[in-house]
């Protein structure tokens, strides 16, 4: 593990807490802008929110419903050129195209910060994907805690929000006149330190207000929950009747959106794209929900039916086998799949159906 990787120790927990006056936030964003590219939630068209590089502090949104498009795009672009390939059949040159640059993801919601932690895990697991991990190490994640559940979110069921204990470099909490900045790593520490004079140590009163806000937020979840426990038992032991998968899969239109916008999904394909006089080898988003995802060159397809693919998605996300490997369910409770699903086979709906043994459409 490199120093930079170690710097964001997942289990280390907050190292210190600071406070910044709300009126000085733009000054802080200005200092952060000088450190590297800052990706933050911005206003898109007609109320849409998009994570994109910002140029000035006033572009950054501080109160917003989470972006439908996950900021995982920052680490895993939909099309990600890995190498430039130049030459011809008798001789080739292959060179990596990833420049290293410090970047800051500002105001990631708790679920999305948790998603980034999850993705770090799968890229560290078994063979280390060092190119991804370098990019991850170059990114400082400033999360923004959620004082209220969002409309579709169920992060409390996934231990991924509304407030985080770890998995961030800095966690901001809006306390009104001040913002609380909890530091979770050396990278986070650096981000707060470089802004000398803007931050002061947080008071006990501020910390206790943060705890109170968290408790209120947790209390407000109401019905928007997703009970993984019994669904996990059934999926892991193959005790979901086939007829239920059959019925549910009729309500899926194979758009793949559930996986594309999922903060924990990372299925991909590798393809060569023409570029100038040569080629770029690209890693691109793919989805296990697409029929041809498992199609073999021979024409054989081990998951020929939509049912097989819906089943696969929930096995990967909710089975005990993967839970043991990843240390968590493959879900951060962001609720994006509820919004983007062309049909109705989103995470809470399917988990509920499996738990109850019936599908309600």
């Amino acid at each position, binding site marked *: 593990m490199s120093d930079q990787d170690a710097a964001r120790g997942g289990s280390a927990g907050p190292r210190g807490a600071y406070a910044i006056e709300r009126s000085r936030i733009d000054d802080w964003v200005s200092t952060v802008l000088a450190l590297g590219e800052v990706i933050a939630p911005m206003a*898109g*068209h*007609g*109320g*849409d*929110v*998009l994570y*994109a*590089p910002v140029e000035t502090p006033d572009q950054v949104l501080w109160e917003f419903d989470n972006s*439908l*498009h996950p900021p995982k*795009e920052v680490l895993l*672009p*939909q*099309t990600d050129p890995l190498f430039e390939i130049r030459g011809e059949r008798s001789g080739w040159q292959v060179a990596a195209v990833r420049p290293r640059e410090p970047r800051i993801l500002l105001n990631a919601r708790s679920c999305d910060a948790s998603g980034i932690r999850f993705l770090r895990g799968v890229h560290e697991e078994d063979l280390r994907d060092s190119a991804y991990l370098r990019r991850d190490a170059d990114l400082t994640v400033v999360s923004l805690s959620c004082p209220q559940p969002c409309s579709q979110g169920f992060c409390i069921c996934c231990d991924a929000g509304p407030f985080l204990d770890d998995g961030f470099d800095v966690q901001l909490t809006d306390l009104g006149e001040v913002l609380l900045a909890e530091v979770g790593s050396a990278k986070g520490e650096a981000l707060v330190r470089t802004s000398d004079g803007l931050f002061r140590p947080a008071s006990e009163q501020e910390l206790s207000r943060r705890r109170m806000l968290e408790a209120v937020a947790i209390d407000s979840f109401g019905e928007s929950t997703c009970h993984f426990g019994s669904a996990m038992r059934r999926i892991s032991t193959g005790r979901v009747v086939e007829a239920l998968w059959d019925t549910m899969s*009729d*309500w899926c*239109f*194979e*758009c*793949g*959106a559930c996986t*594309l*916008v999922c903060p924990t999904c990372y299925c991909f*394909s590798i*393809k060569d*794209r*023409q570029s100038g006089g040569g080629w770029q080898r690209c890693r*691109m*988003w*793919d*989805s296990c929900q*697409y*029929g*041809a995802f498992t*199609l073999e060159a021979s*024409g054989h397809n081990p998951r020929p039916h939509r049912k097989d693919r819906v089943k696969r998605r929930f096995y990967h996300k909710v089975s005990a086998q993967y839970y043991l490997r990843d240390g968590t369910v493959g879900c951060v409770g962001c609720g994006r799949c509820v*919004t*983007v*699903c*062309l*049909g*109705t086979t989103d995470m809470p709906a399917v988990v509920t159906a499996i738990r109850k043994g019936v599908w*309600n*459409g």
Partner: protein
Amino acid sequence: MRTVLTSCPFCGCGCGLYVHARDGIPSGVAASQHHPVSQGRLCARGWSAHAAAAWGPRLTRPMLRRDGELRGADWGEALDTAARGLARLRSSGRSIGVIASPRLTNEESYLAVRLARGALGTPHIDAPLRAEFALALAGIGEVSGVASSRGTLQDVEASDAILLVEGDLAASHPRAASAITRAVAAGAKLVCCGPAATQMSRLATLSFTWRPGAETDSLAPLIAGALAAGAGEPGAGQLAAGLDALRASLAAIAVGDQARAAARWLVEAARPSVVVAPFPAAPAAVRRVTVAVANLAALCGGLGRPGSALLVLPTRSNAQGSLDMGVTPEALPGGRPLDDGGLRDRLAAAWGTAVTADRGVDAADMVGQTSGLVIVGDALAGGVPPVGPAGEALSGSELVVVLDAFASPALDAADVVLPVAAAIESSGTVTGADGWLRRVRPGGDPPGEARGAWWVLAELGRRLGLGGGPDSPDQVLEEIANVVPGYRGVDRGALDTGWGVLLPAPPVDRAALQPLPAPASPSDDRIVMLDGVYDWGSDPLVDHAPILCRDERSRRKLFPRGQVAMAPGDAEALGVRQGWLVKLVSNHGEAVLPVVLRRELAPGRLSVPFAFRYMLADVLAGMPSASVRVERV
């Protein structure tokens, strides 16, 4: 990274999405949560909207055929050659056709019409897949007096009863399928009609499968049932027109329990909606079907009632706008009749030239039969009847000018190749089936020397004597807003600040119910039909997108001799098994294909994927279905 909001280039639903570009290359898509059509929901195609432009075989410089080979040329040379050749054909009185893709923007479509009816003086202007769409709208118009859709997908999603007429909506228009599915999940009744069982028919409360050739026979009981349930009784106002004739035409129709129930749901619904998606049927049948569903919509109060939609979904993104701009051999812009002298004068004034207002020929009849042919965009892909391997079909033309973003078989016959921006790189506007005018913004830069099709069409027009300009798509839109009926005075500012502009829909004040044709005589014929009139693999935007193309490619590889699906019972009766060859013999010709078994097919019904339509060309003779005799080989 650059991010722009634009409209999806695939089907006619009109979804909005953001395209990310890196180094000017479209590299990803983000859904727009608040876009009124898509509301954050995109289908697999929408999620790959960037891909064809980035991965396809792009045309990057103009080319001219010299000594039998296409060779690079500069823009001036290529445009001059195309214009000179076309002018020569025109002055010698030879025929010229213009086929314009229904994916072009309104501005590009308008300029294509200006090129044809203005600069080239030819009435032969058409878009592939236009005929089916226009016929469906015409059927609606026969009843409502207005040949256009009404309402939006949002209305459909909020409906409490929906009639869906489809080939396979889940495949052709997944976003519309989503609207209906959400409605069903919320408790709406769904009644499905079509030639085969589909994913939507499995979600339906009730579904009816029709026999190709007898489509309206399965709709007639619904209409009779609606009348029996009290629709059309006094109080229905203007809708009483034609009621007696309709009643008379249904006198012999028996209404079964299912039809009675389905009709009652539609009649009693507060917000009934009707959705018509492409289905394989003969052109006349398309019109008969939409006349029937428009009758039903009128009887149920689904014409003009707020919240009730009557939507005809076209296969391609801007089919509606293309039709509105006049890309059709049978009407002027705005759908106005060819003899509308006032409009002709206004167009002539705007174009600075006389306007040809004859009836032209359809796209399929232009191919290989006009001396000159201008092909704009992916115009030869996916049409019914199939245009066939393009190089061959086009060889009858003396001069073929191709404006396209991608290399296609048409290049084999092209004399001049003019590289243009892909749909996702274009600027301008498109019009949805729901009557909304929306912005299309460039999600990337066209590669190499490729230019926007609007610029190429404007330059060709200039070289053919149309004077200067336009200098931008916005200037074209300004002209459209001045002369095209239905688009006059559109608020161009609102296009940018809002999600688009709802074009004014003419009022339904001349509605008249239409009688239904007599039922077809019962038949035991086996019928072979194309499996949906829409097929992903026939769409170049699918074919060039690496994640989307895999299914179709493999299907073709797995079945190099094509395939014909039949019900297991039929196969047993014929004594054939999966993979065995059968010969299909129609009045027109025959074809031999291997059998695959499909449980959902009705007995006597055979189905061939659209992708294999060439193999069935002799049997179908240009129609999407035919009666056949089946023999074991």
